[in-house]
């Protein structure tokens, strides 16, 4: 597989755009022929990052959220950024179950899901400036692995 593609979308920090972001990333990776599980992993991780920009980054104001997607070979990389409040203490923010907004029934599982569902997660944030989340995931890798395993089995038998 030798696909290359890139796109950038900017949208307002309205909760209605959470599903827009998921749909866009799903459409963007469809040439990679992802499994249902990979699609769901990526949609969830993107949903978490975008929701965070809306709730935590911009709180009550409408700001612009930017999502940049790249495909190189069979790897997707997604960068989601806001020019919102930023994060004071990134390592505390990334702890499972930590949330600064329990009154909104946030579960504190957003970063955990991004980590679990993607191969790689990087968080850059400056208080008062904004937050930038970069996530990477190889897509279609499960299928490749299966083919590889089948090959090995074949070789052994």
């Amino acid at each position, binding site marked *: 597989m030798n696909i290359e593609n890139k796109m950038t979308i900017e949208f307002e920090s309205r*909760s*209605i755009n*959470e*599903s827009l972001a*998921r749909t866009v990333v799903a459409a963007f990776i469809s040439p990679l022929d992802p499994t*249902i*599980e990979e699609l*769901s992993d990526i*949609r*969830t991780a993107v*949903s*978490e990052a975008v*929701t965070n920009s*809306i*709730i935590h980054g911009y709180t009550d104001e409408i700001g612009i959220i930017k999502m940049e997607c790249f495909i190189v070979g069979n790897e997707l990389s997604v960068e989601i950024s806001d020019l919102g409040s930023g994060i004071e203490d990134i390592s505390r923010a990334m702890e499972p179950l930590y949330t600064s907004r329990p009154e*909104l*029934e*946030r*579960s504190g*599982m*957003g970063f*955990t*899901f991004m980590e*679990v569902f993607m191969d790689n997660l990087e968080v850059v944030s400056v208080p008062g400036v904004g937050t930038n989340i970069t996530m990477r995931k190889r897509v279609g890798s499960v299928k490749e692995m299966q083919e590889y395993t089948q090959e090995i089995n074949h070789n052994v038998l």
Partner: protein
Amino acid sequence: MEETKYEIVRRVLIIRLQKDLDHHCAVNIREKADKIIDRYYIKHIIFDFSKAKFMDSAGIGVIMGRYKKIKYSGGKVVVSGLNKSIDRIFNISGLYKVIDKYDTADICLQKIESA
């Protein structure tokens, strides 16, 4: 766009989720459900996911929030019809420690009422 459906059977509230349970929908569901719970003296809640395709961590908040609201009066939250992805979210987040899952909303109702 399909709206979440609310059904009351005796003192059980069945919430039938449609399509996506994300932060956008969570805000509405939370408000609507809490009104119904207070008004109709709801004891137990069934979240039926058979028409739902997607849930993220906002869904955990909605479910745990309702769980906390009714557990003091001995109520239960049970769920049905989860697809693989949503089931995985439940597993990873540990929701199954306090919430039971059955195949259909009907079975949930039976289990609750026979308990």
